[in-house]
């Protein structure tokens, strides 16, 4: 008997707003515990939630990009349960009437083919705080994260492997980052997934009983937990047992899923519409406003780069890998560079700098315009390629702009007679090398070029030097 694994996902992404979902506290990760909290997100008596407009706008962008039907009216509901990281004793979510229905995620199968994972809905909700286990049999609660704005993307169940489940989450992450809705960084905790796993005999139609694994925050754990849990279920079923619908814990270290002790299998959340929050109206104009400000999708950008601008696909990939990279590349072109130049210098210099210095493009000190100015100087033969690269490097080190340093840089010497003089001087000093070159050892050209550069104290135009060397050596 062969088995098929079926997976459904609930992906939680924290939206990248400045303030929280229902209060004007700063939405910030990584600060001192209980540093960004107010009566609202801490659940003090008398406090009331007030919806963040920017969160709704981001939610709309996500729904547009995932092809959902946005509901003109939606409502917030209270999900009631007790937990120390949930100070109000309820979470404000959307249960009965979410703001978006349907939609789909495109993801690659293991064999590389494109597949579609249909969505049930997307809704907005607030996040809870964090509990950290201390050594002394206590837990320490930090409410900083409380009431951060979340999007919950709920998918339909679909047959897929663990790798493919991770791919679904990866695809979702790319879109959310691309459209500026969420930083979606699993390590920082602003993207996590709950995974629902069930198995059924291949060819069978009805879905098996599913179990849930919550709060997975790495692609590896998503993949492995699906693999391990489906294997466990198959083992149980083959031995004649039944699967209990339950939430299980993913134990990363031992790579097993475990029963959760003392937890209700299907708690009653007693959902009811939150009487403190008005109905959310989303109008056509709101949707249009977001749609028109959405950036070019990765797919259309790829077409533009490869087909229109003739950039080699392999080169295009690195520019496409982040939205900011493509934006920077476009800015370099807007500053007057050709696509080929922009591509070469972006990959050869900018990406290299970011890599070496371990920087994000956000923190990169050089602007596209100033880099373009340097590149133009090189292309107009006023400075050498090496000089150009040196200027950029120096600019980062000194903190001065490339254009400033460029202004101080003397142009390379390209005058024929001057160069010829230096070349002749070097040729006269190294007759043996000249002989070897004439005899066929072309490698030594580099040595001679270097000698001319030295003689000129680096001011000679190396390209022209090489041309003159070639000519003079061949002539005599």
């Amino acid at each position, binding site marked *: 008997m062969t088995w098929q694994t079926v997976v459904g996902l609930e992906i939680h992404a924290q939206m990248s707003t400045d303030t929280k979902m229902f209060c004007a506290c700063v939405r910030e990760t990584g600060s001192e515990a209980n540093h960004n909290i107010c009566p609202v997100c801490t659940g003090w008596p008398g406090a009331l939630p007030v919806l963040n407009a920017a969160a709704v706008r981001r939610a709309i962008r996500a729904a547009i990009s995932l092809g959902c039907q946005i509901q003109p009216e939606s409502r917030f509901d209270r999900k009631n349960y007790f937990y120390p990281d949930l100070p109000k004793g309820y979470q404000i979510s959307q249960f009965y009437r979410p703001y978006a229905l349907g939609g789909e995620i495109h993801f690659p199968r293991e064999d590389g083919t494109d597949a579609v994972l249909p969505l049930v809905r997307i809704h907005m909700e607030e996040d809870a705080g964090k509990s950290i286990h201390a050594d002394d049999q206590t837990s320490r609660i930090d409410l900083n994260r409380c009431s951060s704005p979340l999007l919950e993307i709920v998918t339909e169940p679909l047959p897929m492997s663990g790798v493919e489940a991770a791919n679904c989450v990866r695809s979702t992450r790319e879109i959310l980052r691309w459209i500026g809705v969420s930083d979606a960084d699993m390590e920082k905790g602003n993207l996590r997934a709950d995974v629902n796993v069930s198995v059924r005999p291949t060819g069978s139609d009805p879905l098996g009983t599913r179990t849930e694994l919550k709060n997975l925050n790495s692609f590896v754990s998503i993949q492995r937990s699906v693999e391990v849990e489906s294997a466990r279920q198959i083992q149980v079923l083959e031995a004649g047992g039944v699967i209990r619908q339950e939430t299980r814990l993913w134990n990363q270290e031992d790579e097993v899923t475990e029963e959760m002790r003392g937890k209700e299998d299907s708690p009653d959340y007693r959902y009811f519409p939150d009487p403190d929050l*008005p109905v959310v109206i989303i109008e056509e104009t709101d949707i249009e406003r977001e749609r028109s400000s959405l950036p070019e999708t990765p797919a259309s950008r790829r077409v533009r780069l490869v087909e229109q601008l003739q950039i080699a696909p392999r080169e295009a990939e690195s520019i496409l890998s982040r939205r900011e990279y493509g934006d920077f590349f476009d800015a370099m072109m807007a500053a007057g560079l050709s696509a080929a130049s922009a591509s070469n210098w972006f990959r050869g210099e900018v990406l290299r700098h970011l890599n070496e210095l371990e920087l994000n493009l956000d923190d990169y000190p050089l602007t596209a315009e100033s880099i373009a100015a340097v590149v133009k100087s090189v292309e107009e033969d006023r400075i050498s390629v090496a000089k150009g690269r040196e200027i950029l490097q120096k600019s980062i080190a000194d903190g001065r702009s490339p254009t400033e340093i460029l202004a101080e840089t003397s142009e390379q010497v390209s005058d024929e007679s001057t160069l010829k003089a230096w070349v002749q001087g070097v040729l006269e000093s190294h007759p043996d090398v000249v002989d070897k070159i004439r005899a066929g050892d072309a490698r030594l050209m580099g040595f001679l070029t270097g000698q001319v550069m030295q003689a000129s104290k680096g001011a000679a135009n190396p390209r022209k030097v090489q041309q003159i060397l070639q000519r003079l050596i061949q002539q005599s």
Partner: protein
Amino acid sequence: MSSPPSLPPRHATVGEVTRWLGEHRCSARQLIDGYLDFLEHLGREIGAVVETFPEQARAAADQSDQRRAAGEILGPLDGIPFTAKMNITTEQGTSDASSSILKGFRAHEDATAVRRLRAAGAVLTGKSNCDEFAMGASNETSSHGVVSNPWDRSRVPGGSSGGAAALAGSHGWAFHLGSDTGGSIRQPAAFCSATGFKPTWGRVSRRGLIAFGSSLDQICPVARDSEDCRQVLQVMEGHDPLDATSLTLDDETVQPISRVALVSEGFGPAIDEQIATAVQTAASQMADQGIEIIERSLPHIEAANACYQVIATAEASSNLARYDGVHIGARESSKDLQSLYETSRHRGFGSEVRRRILLGTFVLSAGYREAYYTRAQAVRDLIREGIDQVLEECDALLLPVSPFAPFPIGERIDDPIALYACDILTVTANLAGVPALALPCGFDASGLPIGMQLMGARGSDHRLLEMGSRWQQWTDHHRALPDGGAA
């Protein structure tokens, strides 16, 4: 040696005191000193006062006097004393909703309504006693002790804003903030012979009101007369960015009320005869003054109390979940979390609160939700539509506030059904979100106060208050003070 202060008479309304101060017959400081004296003596005697803020109040009074001397008063409430119910957060003192579970809670911030009033120069002098978490109709469930009715100390002042109403009923000069979810300002106002007003839902910000039934709650003024309530409303009302359900309402019409409908269900067999007679007499008096009196029936009113109980307790069960002993609230130390929750809440909440949380949890629970909560919401809409329709045929509705007179302390506290019966005439206004004004309209044979209420269409708050003022020009029930200290 300066002449002794000429303080206003004990029964003086806020409006009268404003004029007194304006005529420099005493200073705000002298007024506040006198008022603090009342609070500390009679106020505490009847259990109405939980905390006073003498230092800060005197400082605020001094500032008021300075402004007055410079000709820069902030408005008619500048220098006027007030109190706030224990379930309204204030920067000063504690705001514990009269519950052990919140004992000592310091809000560090004024409720928006309080902030606006202080910004208008009103002087916060103390916090008034109330039923625990505003759940009650007799002020017998408070962790700060029972409040007595100033008209008969063996009887209840009503609830849940028993302290506020008792203070308003026994002394003038000031106004008091309470709250009303199912009658909690109107019923005690009626029991204590004070004027209490519940605004249109959303008119006054609920930020800083410790939530009980969110879709029913409002912060309300109780004072000596309708004009006092109007002055207070004027300052408090209006949209607050910290309360998404708060509204700035333009009053629907400036035409004074001229047609009033007596609500038939307010005069049925369950209503004490003396009360029914007093309200009918009031209607005749209005008719004598040119008001057209008709009679109307409110549909579904027999279901109103049930509807209210379900919705209020459902919302309360959720609103009170935050008192879990984890981040606020009294905690019973425990080895494990579950027992921490259970014992803290069991010990910290009184029995009435526990009962309501239980009912509220039940009506929302799977399998019962449809029959109770969903159904109650639908009935609520029918009640709301019904009252809206009747209000198209008249300007206001008139009926008693309470089916019975103030009852002896201890008589009903062990019988929740008997206690819930207090609400039958008042819950409709909260369910429909309409404004309602409780006005003294006489005394029964035992000398106990009787109150009547006017209800108007949503947004007609100022119109109702204007009608109340006219009523109070034609009559003088509202001027009486216990111990014969009348006007």
